[in-house]
C-alpha cells in the first residue's frame, strides 16, 4: 500500500489575518503541535498556498482589506493546485448567512471568534485527519490508474450495454481511436471473437480475457475486457510452422533420396556379390584356386558396401520416425541359442572363445526379436573383431529394477578396449575410433548408433564400461514389455 510516512510529520498550517495580535495569538496556540506559516493579507495567503511545500490546512479570516476571506477562499478553490487544501474560516462574523456562505464557497468549517482553544485544536485535528484520508484515496486512485495505464495490454471496461466506460492508453494505441472516441464505442465494434478492428478498418488477431465486475457508478455490472494484440506471436507462429514444414519436407526428401539411392546401389551390388560368389564356386570347380583370395576380396567389399547401405537406411528410418517395432512374445533362451549358432564362426575367426551365461528360468519378453538379434550380432561381432585369442561372454538375466521387470543382455570381451574419449563418441554416427580402425577392422561406424536407437525405441538403453587393453562390456537393458517410443 501507499507509504504515508509523510503524514506523520508535523502538519503545516497557514494562518491568515490582517491583525498582527490575532496571528500571534493563534500561532501561539498551535505552534507546539504544528508548523505555522502566517499571511497578513489575501494575496500573500494565496502565494504561500501555492508554493511548495504547501500548507496542509488554512485558517482564514474573512474581514480583511483589499480582498476579503471569501474571495481568497474562492480563488483557492478555483485553482487546481490549491483546491485540495482545506480552509477553515476563523472570523468574528457570526451571522448564520455568513457561515452558510463560507461553507458554500468551499470551506470545510467555520469557527467564530472569540476562539475556544480546545475546540479550535480538535477541529483542526479532525480536518487534518479527513484531508489525510483524502490524500491517501487520491494517491491510491492515481496509483491504480497508473497500473492500468502501464499495462502492456489494452484494458477496456464496458457497461451492461457493452459500451466502453473506461480505457487505458494502450487501448487507444492498439485501436487507433482516442479516449473520447473509444468511450462511445460498443465493444463489438472493436473486437469480434478473436479479431480486433482498428479505426482505419484494418484487422488484427487478438487474445481476449473477460471478467465481470460490479459497476460502482450505477450499481449494475460492468465487464473488464483485456485485449492482447497477438499479431507478432501469430507471425512468429507462422514462421515456425513454415520452417517446420520446410524441415519436414527436406527430411522427407532426404528419406526418399536415401530409399532411392539404396535401391539404385543395391541393383549393381546384386551383380557384384552374385558374380563374385559364382566365380568362387567356378574357380574351385575348374581348379583355378589362385583366383579365390581376390574373388573373396571383391565379395567382402561388396558385402561391406551392402552393410553400409543397410545401416544408413536404418539410421535414416529411425531419424525420420519411420522405423517400426514388430512386437511379439520372444523366448529368450531360444533366441540366445540362435544368435550363438550364427555368430559362432565369427568368434572362432580370431581364435576367441564364446561363453554364454544364462539363467535357466528366464521369462519370455514381449519385444521386437529382429532388433534384439541385430543388437546382439552387432555387439558380438564387434567383440569378435576387436579381440584376439580371448574370451567373449554373452550373459542374459532378468530382474526387477525400481518396480520394473528388466532383461539385461551383456557382451564382455578382453580385447583392445576403449579410451574415455572413444567411449564419449561411441554411440554417435560414423563413430569408429578413427579411420585406420575402419581399415583394419572393417565395419561402418554406424552399428552402435543403431543399437542405441533400437534400445531406446524399445524403452531401454545401452551402456558401456571399458579399460584400454583390458576389454569392454556392453550392457543392454530392456523392459520385459517393450514400450514403443518413436524416435525423432
Amino acid at each position, binding site marked *: 500500500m501507499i507509504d504515508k510516512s509523510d503524514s506523520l510529520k508535523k502538519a503545516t498550517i497557514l494562518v491568515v489575518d490582517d491583525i498582527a495580535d490575532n496571528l500571534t495569538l493563534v500561532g501561539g496556540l498551535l505552534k507546539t503541535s504544528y508548523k505555522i506559516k502566517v499571511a497578513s493579507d489575501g494575496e500573500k495567503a494565496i502565494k504561500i498556498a501555492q508554493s511548495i511545500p504547501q500548507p496542509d490546512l488554512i485558517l482564514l479570516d474573512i474581514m480583511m482589506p483589499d480582498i476579503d476571506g471569501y474571495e481568497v477562499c474562492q480563488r483557492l478553490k478555483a485553482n487546481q493546485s490549491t483546491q485540495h487544501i482545506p480552509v477553515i474560516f476563523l472570523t468574528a462574523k457570526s451571522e448564520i448567512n455568513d457561515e452558510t456562505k463560507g461553507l458554500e464557497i468551499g470551506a470545510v468549517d467555520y469557527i467564530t471568534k472569540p476562539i475556544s482553544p480546545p475546540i479550535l485544536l480538535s477541529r483542526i485535528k479532525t480536518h487534518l485527519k479527513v484531508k489525510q484520508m483524502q490524500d491517501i484515496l487520491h494517491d491510491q486512485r492515481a496509483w491504480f490508474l497508473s497500473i492500468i495505464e502501464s499495462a502492456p495490454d489494452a484494458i477496456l471496461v464496458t457497461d451492461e450495454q457493452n459500451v466502453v466506460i473506461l480505457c487505458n492508453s494502450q487501448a487507444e494505441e492498439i485501436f487507433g481511436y482516442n479516449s473520447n472516441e473509444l468511450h462511445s464505442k460498443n465493444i463489438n465494434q472493436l473486437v469480434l471473437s478473436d479479431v480486433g478492428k482498428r479505426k482505419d478498418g484494418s484487422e488484427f488477431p487478438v487474445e481476449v480475457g473477460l471478467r465481470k465486475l460490479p459497476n460502482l457508478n450505477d450499481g449494475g455490472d460492468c465487464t473488464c475486457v483485456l485485449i492482447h494484440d497477438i499479431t507478432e506471436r501469430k507471425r512468429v507462429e507462422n514462421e515456425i510452422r513454415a520452417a517446420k514444414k520446410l524441415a519436414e519436407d527436406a527430411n522427407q526428401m532426404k528419406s526418399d533420396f536415401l530409399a532411392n539411392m539404396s535401391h539404385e546401389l*543395391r*541393383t*549393381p551390388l*546384386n*551383380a557384384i556379390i*552374385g558374380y563374385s*560368389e559364382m566365380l568362387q564356386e567356378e574357380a574351385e570347380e575348374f581348379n583355378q584356386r589362385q583366383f579365390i583370395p581376390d574373388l573373396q576380396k571383391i565379395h567382402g567389399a561388396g558385402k561391406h558396401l551392402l552393410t553400409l547401405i543397410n545401416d544408413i*537406411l536404418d539410421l535414416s528410418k529411425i531419424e525420420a520416425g519411420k522405423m*517400426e517395432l514388430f512386437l511379439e512374445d520372444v523366448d529368450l533362451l531360444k533366441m540366445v541359442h540362435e544368435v550363438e549358432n550364427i555368430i559362432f564362426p565369427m568368434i572362432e575367426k580370431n581364435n576367441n572363445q564364446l561363453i554364454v551365461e544364462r539363467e535357466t528360468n528366464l521369462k519370455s519378453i514381449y519385444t521386437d526379436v529382429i532388433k534384439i538379434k541385430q543388437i546382439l550380432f552387432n555387439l558380438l561381432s564387434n567383440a569378435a573383431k576387436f579381440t584376439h585369442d580371448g574370451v567373449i561372454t554373452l550373459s542374459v538375466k532378468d530382474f526387477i529394477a525400481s518396480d520394473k521387470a528388466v532383461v539385461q543382455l551383456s557382451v564382455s570381451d578382453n580385447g583392445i578396449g576403449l579410451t574415455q574419449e572413444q567411449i564419449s563418441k561411441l554411440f554417435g554416427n560414423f563413430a569408429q575410433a578413427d579411420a585406420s580402425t575402419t581399415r583394419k577392422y572393417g565395419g561402418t561406424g554406424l552399428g552402435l548408433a543403431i543399437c542405441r536407437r533400437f534400445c531406446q525405441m524399445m524403452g531401454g538403453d545401452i551402456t558401456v564400461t571399458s579399460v584400454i587393453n583390458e576389454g569392454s562390456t556392453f550392457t543392454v537393458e530392456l523392459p520385459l514389455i517393450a514400450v514403443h517410443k518413436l524416435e525423432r
Partner: protein
Amino acid sequence: MVKVLLVDDDELNRDMLSRRLVRNNYTVVIAVNGEESIRMAETNQPDIILMDMNMPMMDGLEATRQIKNNPLTANIPILILSAHAMPSYAAKAIAGGGDDYDTKPIDLERLLGKIQALIKK
C-alpha cells in the same frame, strides 16, 4: 527339374541369377519385362516365377496381378524380388498377390530355401 521363370529388366542380374540357378539344377526361362512374363507364364507353365518388382512399362506387381487373375497361371507361385529394403515393399508385394518376397542383393542359399518352400506348397 524345377522350371523357373525369371523376370528381370536388368541384364546383369538376369544373367547372374539364371546361371546360378542352372548351376543348382534348375531349368530357367527368361522374360525381360512384365508383359512378356504374362505370356511366358501361360505358354511355359513354370513351377515358380521370380518376379522383379521395379520394371519399366509394366512393373512386377501389375504382372503378378494379371498372372494371378488368369486361370491358366493363377496357381503358379510367385516370389517377388526387389532391391527395395523397406519392410513396406515386402508388405506391398504380398498384398499385390506375391506368395513371398526377398531382397536384392540376393542371398542364394536363402532364395533357394524360399523357392523350395513355395514349390512344396
